[in-house]
C-alpha cells in the first residue's frame, strides 16, 4: 500500500483544543448587540382545531417586540421530501401533536418572551387523538392530514425475484415479528439559533444543524427571501445523529421575527422541547419471513413493515424505503419482497437517526437468522459466512458492492472474541452473540430532485504562502469531518495538517448537502481532494514556468517541492521570496524549496491561487420505483460479537464485552474511526436495553428528560475491541467510505443473540428492560 504522510494516522482533531478549553462556541453561546430572545407557544393538545388566537395581551406586555402566528408567517409548506411538504412554521387551523408550534414571541429578554407566550389565548376544539398505528389506520379514523385519509402518509411495495415461487424451494421457512420503541437522538446540545436580518435585506442564521444547505433552501423558500441573500452558518454543533438534519420551525421563526423587528433574534430549545421536536428513530413493526435451503443457502425474504411516523413526514419517505431496501445485504439474497407503510399519528414527528431506517429491521432479521442457524444446526458465524456477499456482487435491488470486507469483518470478530472457545460453552446466565451490519456511504441522490453537486470545496492559498485555507460547507457535528477533510487536503496538496485552516459549515463556502447518511468523508472528501489537486497543479505550473521543468517531474510532499530528477538551481526563487519577506522571522533555508516559497511565487506570477473541487456520484441503481433510495457510491459493513451476563433473578442484562469490526474502506484517521465505532456501539446498547420515548394517554411525552429517558452512562458501557478493516473502496477518496452510522447496525442483534445464548429466550420487543426479559424468562420456565 502507498505510504501516506497525513492520512491513515492518529493525528488529533483540529477542533480538540478549542473544545477541551471551553473556547469552542456553540449556537447557544452566541449573542449580538441589541439582540432579542424568542420563545414558542406550543400546543398542549395532541390533536385539536384552532378556533381563534388572541395575541392582544401578549403584544401589550412591556418589552415584547414581536408576536407572530401563521397569519404573519404565511402558509408556505415545507418539509424534507418535496413530495411530502406537510409542515408549516405555525399551525394555521389545527395542531397535530403536543408541542406543535402555534405562535412565537420576541422580547427584550427570555423571561418577558415566556411571560408573553403565556398571555396568548388560543381557543381549541379537541379532536380524537390517534396515538398508535392501529387506531390511525382503523376504518373511519379521523384524518390527521386532509390529503391522506386513512393516515397512511407513504407506502412502498417492491419485489425483486419472485418471493412466493422461491419459497417453494426452501426447506426451512420462518416468520417472526419484531417491534422496537421510539428513540430520541439524545445529543447533548439542544438546538439553538441566532438570526440576523440586516438593513440591506441579507439574512444570516447561525444554527445548530447538520446541513446548512437544506436550512438555507428551506428558510429562503418559506420566507420568500432570495436564496443569495440567505446565509446559514453552523458554529460548533453538539451532536446531531439525524434529528438536526432538516430545518426546524425555530430557525424559520427566528428569521421571521428578525426580519420583522430589524433586530437579531436568538432562540434555544429546552431539553423538553428537544423531545417534542424529536425527528429521531421511528417505532418499527416488522414481520419477516425468510426461506432457507437445508444446506444453509438463504433464498427468499419477505418484509412487511409499519412505521409510526408521528404528525409530519420529515425524513419518513426515505425511512420507509430504507427499512426495506437495506435489509438484504450483506447477504446474497435473490428474492426479496417488501411492503412498507408509514402512518401519521398525533405524536412528535419521527425522522432520521443513526442507521436511518435499517436498525430495527437489522435487529429483527439478524436474530431470525440465528434462529434459522439453530434449526440448521449450523454455527451462526458459519451460516453467515456461507451467505456473505463479497466485492463485486450486486444485490437483487441493484446495489453495487464496489468494495465489501464483510468476510474479513466476520472472521476478525470471530477470532478477536474467542468465539470458537465460547459459543455453546458458557455457563448459564452468560451468553455470546454475533451479527452483521451494512450501510450506505452517503445517499446517492439529493433529497430534492437536482443535478447539484453533493459537495464543493475551495482552497485559497494565503498570499504570503503561509497557509492553506480550505472552504467547505460540510458540517462538523462531532463526527470529525473538519479533521478528516483537513487531512485529505493536506495529503493531496503535500503539506502538513498544521498548514491547513479548515473553514466549514457556511453556505457562503459552497454547496454541501451536509452530515447525513454517512456522506462526508466520501463525498466532501472527494471535493476537497479535487480542490487540493487543482491547487497543487496551479502552484506547480507557476514553478514550471520559472524553472523550466515539466510539471510531471515535480511534486509536493511534506511541505517541500520534490524534484524527481534532482534539485535544480532555485536560488533566484529563494532570493525573491526572501526579498518579499524581508525582516520576517522563519525564512526558508536549506537545500529544499518549500511549499511556502512555491505558493508565494505562484501568487506573484498568477494572483490569488484558488483551487476548486466538486463531487457528485455517477448514476446509481436500478430503474424501479424508489430505486434511488438506498443507492450509494459505496457500502460499509461490519460485524460484532457481544458477550452478556443476565441476572437470572431480575432479568438485568450486563454487556460484558463487545468486539466490533468495521470496513471503512480506508481509515483517514484511525482514532476517529474507532471513536465512531465506539459511539455507535454505545448508542446501540442504549437502544437495545433502555431507550424508549413514552407517552401518556393524551399524547404528552411522559419522560422528556435525560434522567427518565436513559442513555448509556460510563458505567453501562464496557471497553470494546474495535477492529478496523480496510477494503480500499474504488469510489472513495483514497479508498475511504463510511463508519458513522453502519457501525450501529450489528450491536442490537448481537446483544439479543447473546441474551438468547444466555437464557434461551427470543426477544421480539425493544428495549429489553429487566422487567420485559424477566417476564420472558418466567414464561419459558412455565413451558
Amino acid at each position, binding site marked *: 500500500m502507498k505510504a501516506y504522510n497525513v492520512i491513515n494516522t*492518529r493525528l*488529533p*482533531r483540529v*477542533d*480538540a*483544543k*478549542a*473544545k*477541551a*478549553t*471551553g*473556547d*469552542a*462556541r*456553540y449556537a*447557544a*453561546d452566541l449573542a449580538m448587540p441589541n439582540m432579542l430572545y424568542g420563545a414558542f407557544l406550543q400546543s398542549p393538545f395532541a390533536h385539536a382545531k384552532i378556533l381563534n388566537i388572541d395575541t392582544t395581551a401578549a403584544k401589550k406586555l412591556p418589552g415584547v417586540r414581536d408576536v407572530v402566528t401563521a397569519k404573519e408567517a404565511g402558509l408556505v409548506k415545507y418539509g424534507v421530501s418535496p413530495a411530502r411538504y406537510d409542515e408549516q412554521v405555525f399551525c394555521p387551523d389545527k395542531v397535530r401533536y403536543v408541542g406543535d408550534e402555534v405562535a412565537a414571541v420576541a422580547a427584550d429578554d427570555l423571561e418577558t418572551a415566556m411571560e408573553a407566550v403565556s398571555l396568548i389565548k388560543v381557543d381549541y376544539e379537541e379532536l380524537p387523538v390517534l396515538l398508535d398505528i392501529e387506531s390511525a389506520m382503523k376504518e373511519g379514523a379521523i384524518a390527521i392530514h386532509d390529503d391522506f385519509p386513512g393516515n397512511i402518509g407513504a407506502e412502498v411495495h417492491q419485489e425483486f425475484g419472485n418471493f412466493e415461487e422461491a419459497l417453494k424451494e426452501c426447506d426451512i421457512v420462518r416468520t417472526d415479528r419484531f417491534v422496537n420503541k421510539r428513540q430520541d*437522538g*439524545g*445529543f*447533548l*446540545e*439542544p438546538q439553538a439559533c441566532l438570526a440576523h436580518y440586516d438593513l440591506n435585506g441579507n439574512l444570516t442564521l447561525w444554527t445548530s444543524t447538520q446541513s446548512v444547505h437544506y436550512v438555507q433552501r428551506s428558510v429562503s423558500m418559506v420566507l420568500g427571501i432570495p436564496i443569495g441573500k440567505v446565509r446559514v452558518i453552523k458554529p*460548533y*454543533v*453538539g*451532536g446531531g*445523529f439525524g434529528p438536526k438534519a432538516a430545518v426546524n420551525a425555530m430557525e424559520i421563526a427566528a428569521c421571521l421575527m428578525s426580519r420583522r423587528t430589524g433586530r437579531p433574534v436568538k432562540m434555544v430549545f*429546552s*431539553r423538553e422541547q428537544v423531545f417534542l421536536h424529536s425527528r429521531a428513530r421511528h417505532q418499527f413493526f416488522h414481520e419477516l419471513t425468510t426461506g432457507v435451503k437445508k444446506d444453509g443457502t438463504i433464498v427468499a425474504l419477505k418484509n412487511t413493515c409499519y412505521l409510526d411516523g408521528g404528525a409530519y413526514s420529515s425524513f419518513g419517505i426515505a425511512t420507509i424505503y430504507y427499512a426495506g431496501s437495506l435489509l438484504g445485504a450483506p447477504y446474497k439474497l435473490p428474492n426479496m419482497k417488501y411492503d412498507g407503510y408509514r402512518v401519521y399519528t398525533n405524536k412528535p414527528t419521527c425522522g432520521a437517526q443513526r442507521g436511518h431506517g435499517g436498525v430495527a429491521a437489522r435487529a429483527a432479521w439478524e436474530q431470525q437468522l440465528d434462529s434459522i442457524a439453530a434449526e440448521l444446526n449450523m454455527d451462526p458465524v458459519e451460516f453467515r459466512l456461507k451467505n456473505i456477499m463479497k466485492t463485486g456482487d450486486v444485490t437483487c435491488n441493484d446495489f453495487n458492492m464496489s468494495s465489501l470486507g464483510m468476510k474479513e469483518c466476520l472472521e476478525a470478530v470471530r477470532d478477536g472474541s474467542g468465539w470458537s472457545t465460547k459459543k455453546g460453552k458458557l455457563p448459564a446466565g452468560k451468553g455470546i452473540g454475533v451479527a452483521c451490519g451494512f450501510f450506505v456511504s452517503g445517499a446517492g441522490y439529493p433529497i430534492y430532485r437536482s443535478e447539484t453537486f453533493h459537495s464543493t470545496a475551495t482552497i485559497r492559498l494565503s498570499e504570503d504562502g503561509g497557509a492553506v485555507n480550505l472552504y467547505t460547507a460540510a458540517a462538523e*457535528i*462531532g*463526527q*470529525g469531518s473538519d479533521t478528516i477533510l483537513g487531512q485529505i487536503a493536506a495529503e493531496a496538496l503535500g503539506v502538513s495538517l498544521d498548514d491547513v485552516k479548515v473553514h466549514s459549515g457556511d453556505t457562503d463556502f459552497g454547496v454541501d448537502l451536509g452530515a447525513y447518511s454517512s456522506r462526508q468523508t466520501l463525498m466532501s472528501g472527494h471535493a476537497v481532494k479535487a480542490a487540493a489537486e487543482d491547487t497543487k497543479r496551479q502552484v506547480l505550473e507557476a514553478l514550471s514556468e520559472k524553472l523550466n521543468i515539466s510539471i510531471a517531474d515535480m511534486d509536493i510532499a511534506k511541505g517541500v517541492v520534490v524534484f524527481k530528477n534532482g534539485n535544480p538551481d532555485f536560488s533566484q526563487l529563494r532570493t525573491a521570496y526572501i526579498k518579499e519577506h524581508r525582516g520576517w522571522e522563519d525564512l526558508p533555508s536549506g537545500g529544499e524549496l518549500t511549499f511556502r516559497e512555491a505558493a508565494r511565487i505562484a501568487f506573484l506570477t498568477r494572483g490569488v491561487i484558488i483551487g476548486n473541487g466538486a463531487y457528485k456520484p455517477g448514476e446509481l441503481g436500478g430503474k424501479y420505483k424508489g430505486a434511488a433510495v438506498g443507492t450509494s457510491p459505496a457500502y460499509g459493513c461490519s460485524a460484532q460479537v457481544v458477550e452478556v451476563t443476565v441476572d437470572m433473578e431480575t432479568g438485568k442484562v450486563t454487556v460484558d464485552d463487545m468486539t466490533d469490526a468495521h470496513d471503512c474502506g480506508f481509515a483517514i484517521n484511525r*482514532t*476517529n474511526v*474507532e*471513536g465512531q*465505532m*465506539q*459511539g*455507535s*456501539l*454505545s*448508542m446501540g446498547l442504549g437502544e437495545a436495553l433502555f431507550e424508549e420515548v413514552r407517552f401518556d394517554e393524551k399524547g404528552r411525552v411522559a419522560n422528556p*428528560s*435525560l*434522567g427518565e429517558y436513559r*442513555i*448509556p*452512562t*460510563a*458505567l453501562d*458501557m464496557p*471497553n*470494546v475491541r474495535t477492529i478496523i478493516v480496510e477494503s480500499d473502496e474504488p469510489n472513495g477518496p483514497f479508498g475511504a467510505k463510511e463508519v458513522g452510522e453502519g457501525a450501529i447496525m450489528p450491536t442490537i442483534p448481537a446483544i439479543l443473540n447473546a441474551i438468547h445464548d444466555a437464557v434461551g429466550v427470543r426477544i421480539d420487543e425493544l428495549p429489553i428492560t429487566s422487567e420485559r426479559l424477566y417476564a420472558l424468562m418466567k414464561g419459558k420456565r412455565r413451558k
Partner: protein
Amino acid sequence: MKKLITFRVNDREYEIAVAPNRTLTQVLREDLNLLGTKEGCGVGDCGACTVIVDGKPVNSCLVLAVQADGSDITTIEGVARGDSLHTVQQTFVEMGAIQCGFCTPGMVLSATSLLDKNPRPTEREVREAISGNLCRCTGYQKIVEAVQEASRRMKK
C-alpha cells in the same frame, strides 16, 4: 430583589448583584461570559454544566447563584494555565476523547477533580467519577483511557 454576592471564579474575585432565581450556570454564562460551561438539560441530568465549587464537582444548573456566595469556583476556563493545557485536557486532545465537545468541559472538570482526590483511580473509579457526565458521541472508552493516561503522566 437582587442580592449582592461575592465569589471567586478561576482565581478572580467577583462582586455581583443576582436575582434569587438565577442559577449558577446562568450567572457564569450570561453575567461572567464564561461560556465554556454548557447547559444540556437544566435539571441536573447530563452533567454538561459541571463546575468545581469548593473542591467538589457540581451541576451548576442545580445551584442557585446566591448559594454560591463566598465560594471558590473553577470553570473550564480556569483549567488550562495560559497556553498550556492541563494534563487531562492534553490527554483528551491526544487520545480522541473529544467528539462533539459539548460534554467535554464538564467531563474534564469531573476528571480533574477525581485525580485531585485520587491520583491513581482504577478504571471502575474513573467510570464512577464521570457517570454523571453523559456523552452521546464517544461511547466513553477514549475518555476513560485519557483519564487513566493523565493519571499516569501526573504521577511522574
